[in-house]
């Protein structure tokens, strides 16, 4: 016997005992009829020495089944005490507005697209961004809107007719005192022109200056009374009372915007409840681009939605996402080494994947920009809200039937 074999044998006799003991300890197997090869033992033993192996890995072959052992599967359904409120946006003639249709979002009773628990609620909607003044845009987006950059009404029309926007987000960026400082009256005129150009429900956004936004929103609310516009947005640093009163008085709806913080989101909602019914509030907990904080945006939204379903009544609102922020990622617009492909594809897929990730966190209202991203996300929403039926037998053949 070689030294090597001797060592192996000694090793085996030493650890063999331990194995028998271990196996007995777990009461899993009798050793009598089991043939153990050296290689098997080494395979089993090694991890124990490392101290990492699960005791269960020591299960030795039992009588091998001859037939499939049947098991039942029960969908792991849970019940949730909470429900997301339904928020209606827009108003038709009979409701005091001029929109061709209204849109309802929210109403979820389970996490996003858990069809095994309950049928889908209202499908998420896509609203396309339109700006009231020329702003810097990524080239991939610009080529689609170059001729309408200074004509928000035409831009809105194209978004609805050509790209199938469910809604329009009109961003009044020019009201910024540091930019054009457009007056509330002028801004309201722009809103009216867009309301005339398209008949989908409208969202109106400001410039981020809490005082100027309030002034403009108050004017727009009055001029477009009864249209049930979705105002984007009210923030903690605004005069919440004045803003909420304008919303209420003229029959509108509002997005409550907070920067990625659930406590701030609760606080803002609580303050709004003093003036507005819950059904008038959509929440936006901030969207960061894929690669630039999307994980935080995703987790805040997922946590918010789960907490709402578990009964946190201050978070039971539909979620809004400024998905266009995806374009802030440099991978979306920068010319890169050719191996990363043309930015004309990288940009829209960046926006698409940012949207799809947040769709699965529970977002109900997407503000988007690129036509291809809009088209894809619409298709995915349609797919996720219905059971399409699956050709299960066919997919067995995938291994040798990929074409290209």
């Amino acid at each position, binding site marked *: 016997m070689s030294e090597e074999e001797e060592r192996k044998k000694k090793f085996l006799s030493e650890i063999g005992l331990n194995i028998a003991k271990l196996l007995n*300890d777990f009461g899993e197997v009798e050793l009598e009829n089991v043939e153990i090869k050296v290689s098997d033992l080494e395979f089993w033993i090694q991890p124990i020495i490392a*101290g*990492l192996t699960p*005791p269960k*890995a020591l*299960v*030795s*072959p039992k009588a*091998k*089944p001859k*037939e*499939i*052992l049947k*098991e*039942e599967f029960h969908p*792991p359904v849970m019940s949730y005490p909470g429900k997301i409120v339904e928020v209606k946006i827009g108003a038709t003639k009979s409701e005091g507005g001029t929109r061709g249709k209204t849109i309802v979002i929210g109403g979820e009773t389970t996490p996003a*697209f*858990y069809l095994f628990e309950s049928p889908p609620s209202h499908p998420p909607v896509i609203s396309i961004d339109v700006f009231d003044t020329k702003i810097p845009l990524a080239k991939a987006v610009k080529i689609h809107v170059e001729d309408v950059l200074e004509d928000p009404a035409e831009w809105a029309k194209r978004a609805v007719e050509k790209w199938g926007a469910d809604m329009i987000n009109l961003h009044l960026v020019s009201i910024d005192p*540091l930019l054009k400082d457009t007056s509330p009256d002028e801004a309201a005129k722009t809103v009216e022109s867009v309301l005339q150009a398209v008949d989908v429900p409208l969202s109106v956004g400001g410039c*981020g200056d809490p005082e100027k936004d309030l002034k403009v929103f108050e004017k727009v609310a009055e001029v477009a009374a009864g249209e049930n516009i979705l105002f984007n947005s009210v*923030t903690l640093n605004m005069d919440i009372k004045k803003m909420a009163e304008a919303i209420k008085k003229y029959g509108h709806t509002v997005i409550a915007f907070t*920067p*990625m913080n659930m406590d701030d989101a609760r606080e803002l909602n609580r303050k709004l409840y003093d003036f507005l019914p819950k059904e008038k509030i959509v929440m936006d907990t*901030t969207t*960061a681009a894929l690669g*630039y*904080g*999307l*994980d*935080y945006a*995703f987790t805040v939204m*997922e*946590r918010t939605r789960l907490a709402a379903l578990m009964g946190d009544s201050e978070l039971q609102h539909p979620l809004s996402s400024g998905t266009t*922020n995806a374009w802030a990622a440099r*991978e979306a617009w*920068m010319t890169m080494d050719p*191996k*990363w*492909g*043309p930015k004309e*594809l990288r940009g829209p*897929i*960046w926006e*698409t994947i940012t949207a*799809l*990730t947040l769709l*699965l966190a529970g977002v109900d209202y997407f503000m988007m920009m690129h036509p291809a991203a809009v088209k894809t996300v619409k298709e*995915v929403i349609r797919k*996720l809200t219905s059971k*399409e039926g*699956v*050709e*299960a037998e066919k*997919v067995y053949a*995938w*291994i*040798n039937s*990929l*074409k*290209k």
Partner: protein
Amino acid sequence: MPKKTLSPTEIYKYLPKTNCKECGEENCMAFATKLVNREASLDKCSPLLTDAYKESYKALWEMLKPPVKEVALGSDGNVVKIGGKLVMYRHELTYVNPTAIAIDVSDDMPEDELIKRVKEIESFSYDYIGQKLKLDLIAVRSALNDAKAFGLVVKKVSSITNLPLILCSLDPNIIEAGLIEASSRRPLIYAATKDNWKEMAELSLMYKCPLAVFSPNDLKMLKSLVKTLKEYGVEDLVLDPGTFWNGLSETINNFTMIRRSACKEEDEFLGLPLIGVPATVWMEPDEIPEVTIWKEACLSSMLITRYADALIMHSFEGWSLLPLIILRQNLYTDPRKPVAVESGLKAFGSPNEASPVLATSNFALTYYTVASDIEAGKVNCYLIVVDTEGLSVESAIAGRKLTAEKVAEALKGSGVESKVNHKTLIIPGRASRISGEIEELTGWKVLVGPMDSSGIPKFLQEKWQKTT
């Protein structure tokens, strides 16, 4: 039974309580806390590994074992671990073992093409905040349905790459031809089905390789197969409930139901890693290849979000893989770790009294991006990192976390005033709207920098020389 949350006290009960510090912690209670937070592993406690504590070890192992089993693919230094998930939602703790991405090759490819593709998969890499994002696995498909051809291609692939493999065929004879060439590398066998499970189980046991179980859109059958295979002695199993573009809802629901059964109901048969096959979109490709690549990327991204521990993809394009590897990195970061870097003054290169002073936010991604752009441009400068509570410049401006007051405070606190002989501050392009207020508050002249930090070197070249 839903899994209850562990407390350090429960864990402590089973520890030696000797405070021997061999684990590197001050005492056993501190070690227990680390264990609960998954920041330490049991084997760090050497007394636990002795015979005397065998029962405690067993109890602790049961308490701490993840609801989703961890399965290792590959051998030696080239191992990719999949599964091992501790929670369903990342905020509940953190996700471990990022979704392993496999790109396929097949036995009908011309050899030069095959070699080129394997080499490209292996060298694929993207630098992202100090990390190299890479692909993980190669899936070898039997396209010709021929054992000999499959054996040859597996042999070839094994000889040119160390990446762990997935061997794909539903024919046990073909799989065995591949295993003969590569079993020592411990590839994943793909796959056992309701029709071939017995033969595949034998192969898995004989060659000691992990086994995927494929039961498209039939979770009852999937569970039955797992039960049968476990009874057969196969422990390292990976689940494929089927991936369908036409049937996306079913796909996402199946993945979700399986993961919930594992994490919330401790289902012993479904507590296994999940593998998705977005490559199936290529069974009926669009006339325009980009459309199919696009679909495959979308499907992959949703499966990364919804619990896939491994993916098999067919397209291999930079523009579609880049968002996927970044999404994966994002979702698998530890949500407990702060997003912010330390605020304060940083010096780049060797700045002197005439060097420019820039400002940015303390969001980790912003900071690393700006820092790498400054370094790439070989610029000597000072950078004031403003505490924006971990928000990017754009979000911080919108959320009032980056204000003129904050900048003024940071400027004062940085002490940069005594280091330079000028009073000019360069702020990010996205913070332009507060430039006037900063000038008023600080008395410094403000230059509005580029919208993206990649423009910093050029900006300084053009503007800085002129201003000073």
